[in-house]
Every structure is written in structure tokens, then in C-alpha cells.
């Protein structure tokens, strides 16, 4: 219960250690690990119609979350350092907050996703994809809020491009990692084929 409380206070920005301190970085790492665990839970729920898929999703969904973050962080950190001259630790902690913010949406939707995937072949994948989109929006918003929060108003426009770049690269990486991890849902979706699949859907 303490761990759960700690998670919520961390996303809520109530109990914050000093930026760049070991405690702050420790909380960021804990948030990232928690996001991966919640992602695994959502993956198991989304693939629960088949035991094999549910077990495989225990690592597939966290893999997409973690590797997309690792793909985006170098460019984001570079832009962050070049534009805002702030410490890398504050950017990393803000990103971990974003991961957790998105993962909490996934965790909240997991029971609904499991229920619909068992009871509706048509709506199950739709509910799963809607929950992923909501998680992405929530994660990006939490990340931006955490990154911009400590800045003075004059400093904020410098931080926005770094955050936007990081989010864009992470989305692009997650789309293709989805191809590597496919199948995550029991039926193929528009995102299963990555960018080629999306282009195929867009072209008449």
C-alpha cells in the first residue's frame, strides 16, 4: 500500500526531492520500473483470450515501452542540453513521470480490455487501441508538464522543442517496435504492420 501511495504522490508532484538528487533519480527509476510492470499487466489483459499470447505479452508490452523510451532519450537529452542547459537528470525524471502517467491509464483500462477481449470480438481490439491512444496522450501530457513545471516562463519555450522531439521519436519507435512485438492483440490491427501498415490503410 505504501508503494502505491508513493507512486501516486510521485505522479502528483506532491512529494518531490531536489532535482538531480539521488532520491529524485531513485523515484524516477522506480516510476519507470512500475510503468513496465503496469504495461505487462495490460499486455496480459489484452492477450488473455490465449494463454500463450497473454504470457508473451508480459514482456512484449514492457519491451515496446522501454525500448521506445531508450530510442527517444538520446535525441531528447541532446536537444534538452542544447536548448535549455538544464541537467539531464531533470529531463530523465520528467520522462519517467510521463511513462508512469501513461502506464497508469493502461493499468486503469486493463480490466475493461480483458472483459471486452473475452466477450466481444469486434469491440475488444477497439477498446484496447483506444486505451493505448489515451495512455500515449496522457503520458505525453504528463511528460510535458513535468518538464516545464520547474521552469520560469521565459525558459519554457526552450524546453518545449526538446520534449516534442522526444515524444515524436518515441511514437515513431513504438510504432515499429509494435511490428517486432506483433502479435500483441489477438487480431491484426492497423498498427500491427507499423508504418507500412498505416500507409497501406491510408492508400485507397
Amino acid at each position: 500500500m505504501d508503494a502505491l501511495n508513493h507512486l501516486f504522490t510521485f505522479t502528483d508532484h506532491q512529494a518531490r526531492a531536489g532535482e538531480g538528487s539521488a532520491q529524485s533519480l531513485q523515484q524516477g527509476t522506480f516510476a519507470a520500473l512500475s510503468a513496465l510492470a503496469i504495461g505487462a499487466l495490460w499486455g496480459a489483459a489484452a492477450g488473455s483470450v490465449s494463454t500463450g499470447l497473454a504470457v508473451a505479452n508480459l514482456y512484449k508490452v514492457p519491451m515496446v515501452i522501454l525500448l521506445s523510451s531508450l530510442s527517444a532519450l538520446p535525441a531528447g537529452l541532446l536537444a534538452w542540453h542544447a536548448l535549455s542547459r538544464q541537467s539531464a537528470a531533470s529531463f530523465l525524471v520528467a520522462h519517467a513521470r510521463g511513462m508512469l502517467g501513461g502506464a497508469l491509464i493502461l493499468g486503469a483500462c486493463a480490466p475493461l480490455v480483458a472483459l471486452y477481449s473475452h466477450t466481444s470480438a469486434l469491440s475488444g481490439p477497439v477498446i484496447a487501441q483506444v486505451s493505448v491512444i489515451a495512455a500515449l496522450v496522457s503520458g505525453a501530457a504528463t511528460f510535458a508538464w513535468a518538464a516545464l513545471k520547474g521552469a520560469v516562463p521565459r525558459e519554457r519555450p526552450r524546453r518545449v522543442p526538446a520534449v516534442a522531439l522526444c515524444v515524436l521519436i518515441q511514437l515513431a519507435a513504438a510504432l515499429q517496435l509494435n511490428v517486432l512485438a506483433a502479435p500483441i492483440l489477438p487480431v491484426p490491427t492497423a498498427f500491427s504492420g507499423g508504418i507500412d501498415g498505416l500507409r497501406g490503410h491510408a492508400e485507397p
Partner: protein
Amino acid sequence: MSALVLDASILRAGPLARLAHAGPASALTEPSPAARGGAALLFFVAVALLVWAYRRLRERAREEEASALLLEEFANLERPSGALPSRASAAPSDKRAPGEG
């Protein structure tokens, strides 16, 4: 109209398109087992590193917290509870930093 359609299909299947797409679309979107295995391996290594970093940071955070508590205790020793800070009620001079007071 049919000629236009034919031209467009020739452009799509021209040498440049063939260079860009070495195989059929299904082969492009199907990753190799090595890529899948590599991604999984990278993921497990990254998780292990993350767990290791978390444990190291937790130790360091505890050290920081302990040193902060120690500093606070020293400050409390220098200022007895219930007494106003003054030269007479201050702690012995050997607890102070050199050059202080």
C-alpha cells in the same frame, strides 16, 4: 484514362521503387526472428540495468538521508531545546567548525 493508370503503375514498379522495396510488402513488414530475439535480449538487459541502477540509487539516497539527519542532529546539539540561541547557552566550542563564533 487507362494509359494514365498504366503509367502510374509503371512508376510504382520502376527501378527506383524496386530499389526501395527489395521484396513484396508482406516480406518488408515481417521482421526476422533475429530482430525479434535481439529486441527481446536488449529489453532484458535494459531491465537488468534499470534494476541495478535503482538499487544503487536507493543506497545513495539512504546515505544522503543519513548524512542530512546527522547534520540536523549536530545543529540540534548546538542549540539546546527550549533555549534561545545565545553565546551562553551554545554548545561547547569543540563542536563548532573552525573559525565559527
